[in-house]
């Protein structure tokens, strides 16, 4: 079985995003960028499935600027076999990303597509579900555990009420949640090796996908700022404050 894994280059998890003064977006100039943390988990899961003998090949895909090549090299260094960069300088919305991934899935015929459940940049949480819809295949979102057996995959999902299990017929799309696994660090030899792994460059037009946005961002603003309040000296003072709130 082949696994397709999608990765996105986003602002690093530890960077506090700043809104541009002109309100057109978030300032990404000279900001550290990394692989979306959920996508790292997806790559790791793909590798573990291959290690268990459930997958033969892992193809990593990214849709983004030329620099997304670095993100793909990271996936290759972790253990993906080859990569496809669909290069565009435009911001591509989840629906268009899903359409491009659908076209790639048509070509590659993966048994399983793994993606992070959301990108920590726009927090949309849509792409995997949209891809599954376009492929006409089942979806296992917010995966906490993934078990491939024969022609099906069992996914334990993190849901509002706890954990839920679904069994999906392959091919299927799975989106990863935080506790599915802990991604490995790429070793130096593997980082070197990744440089010579195949990476093919494409454009959205190669897949016949129109990436014109459907949503127009009118403005981006700072959220209301919360002011720090008071510090109390001891528990008695805290008790008085809590009682004043009328909850005890």
């Amino acid at each position: 079985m082949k696994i397709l894994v999608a990765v996105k280059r986003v602002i690093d998890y530890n960077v506090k995003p700043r809104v541009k003064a002109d309100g057109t977006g978030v300032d990404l100039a000279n900001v550290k960028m990394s692989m979306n943390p959920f996508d790292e988990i997806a790559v790791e899961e793909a590798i573990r499935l291959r290690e268990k003998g459930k997958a033969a090949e892992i193809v990593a895909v990214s849709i983004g600027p030329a620099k997304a090549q670095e993100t793909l090299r990271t996936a290759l260094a972790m253990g993906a076999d080859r990569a496809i960069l669909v290069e565009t300088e435009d911001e591509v919305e989840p629906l268009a990303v899903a359409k491009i991934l659908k076209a790639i899935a048509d070509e590659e015929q993966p048994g399983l597509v793994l993606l992070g459940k959301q990108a920590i940049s726009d927090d949309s949480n849509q792409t995997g579900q949209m891809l599954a819809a376009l492929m006409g295949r089942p979806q296992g979102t917010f995966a906490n555990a993934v078990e491939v057996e024969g022609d099906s995959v069992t996914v334990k999902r993190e849901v509002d009420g706890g954990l839920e299990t679904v069994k999906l017929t392959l091919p299927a799309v799975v989106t990863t949640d935080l506790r599915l696994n802990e991604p490995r660090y790429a070793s130096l030899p593997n980082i070197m090796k990744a440089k010579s792994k195949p990476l093919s460059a494409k454009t959205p037009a190669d897949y016949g996908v129109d990436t014109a946005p459907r949503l127009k961002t009118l403005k981006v603003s700072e959220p209301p700022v919360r002011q720090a309040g008071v510090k109390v000296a001891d528990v008695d003072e805290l008790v008085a404050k809590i009682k004043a709130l009328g909850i005890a």
Partner: protein
Amino acid sequence: MKTLVLVEHGDGKVHDATLATVTAAGKLGSVAALVCGDGEEAAKAAAAAATVAGVDKVLLASGPAYAQMLAENVAALIVPLMDDYDALLCNASSNGKNVAPRVAALLDVMQLSDIISVEGDKTFTRPIYAGNAIATVESSDPKLVITVRGTAFAKAASEGGSAGVENVSGPGDQGLSSFGGCESVKSDRPELTSAKVIVSGGRALKDAETFKEVILPLADKLGAGVGASRAAVDAGYVPNDYQVGQTGKIVAPQVYIAVGISGAIQHLAGMKDSKTIIAINKDEDAPIFQVADIGLVGDLFKIVPELTGKL
């Protein structure tokens, strides 16, 4: 505009988050509520949805295929229904996030995720970058698919409406997926997303046992829901459904008590709209104090039991 709201329900009752979604939908136009489920529970939920203020009509899709809200089956049901509606609104819950994008893609619509306000027929605001920025976005699609952040809208009254219930049927089981059970701990505590008071614990709680010993008595005293930071969940102190934050639950209680939580931006994203935030932390420079209305610096293992005793 005609809107369709996907109802979430349990024990024959409509979830609070859906009541907030009804309010958001009402800002756009008339509201039809779609109840998917099976058997008596679904019928009860449909009857409950019919009394929600602002709901004009209830559609009930009943059958085993809809019992567990499997996205494949529910999306296949909703897509043809959307011929008659201009907008679909779902809760930004694990269910809504699972179903809505599948519907959006099948309608060739770009979804608006997690809206926090309705600015016009096609214009909404939504948080991005873990709530560090608020985007105002306008859709150019002929139909809208939206998920709604429940804490950002008032709940519609659960009584006062008198909508009719109409049965609808869909294509049924798509044969792509099946439900294999759920693991959830039944608790008498208030549910996080509707709790008036929440006590949350962080990594400083050391282990599952200590978390229980320190946090639960305080929560019991206040009749509070119990939450946790990602670090505490990752470390296995509590199950995943306790997590508050960017990728966990978004809460906005009257009072949020953060115990041993440093206040990473990903956690703040899930609770900074709480009315009053109380922080207890030994590190006086912890970022949680920058958003806390009331802070107490010190050893939580001494403070929390003393506080519980004195309340």
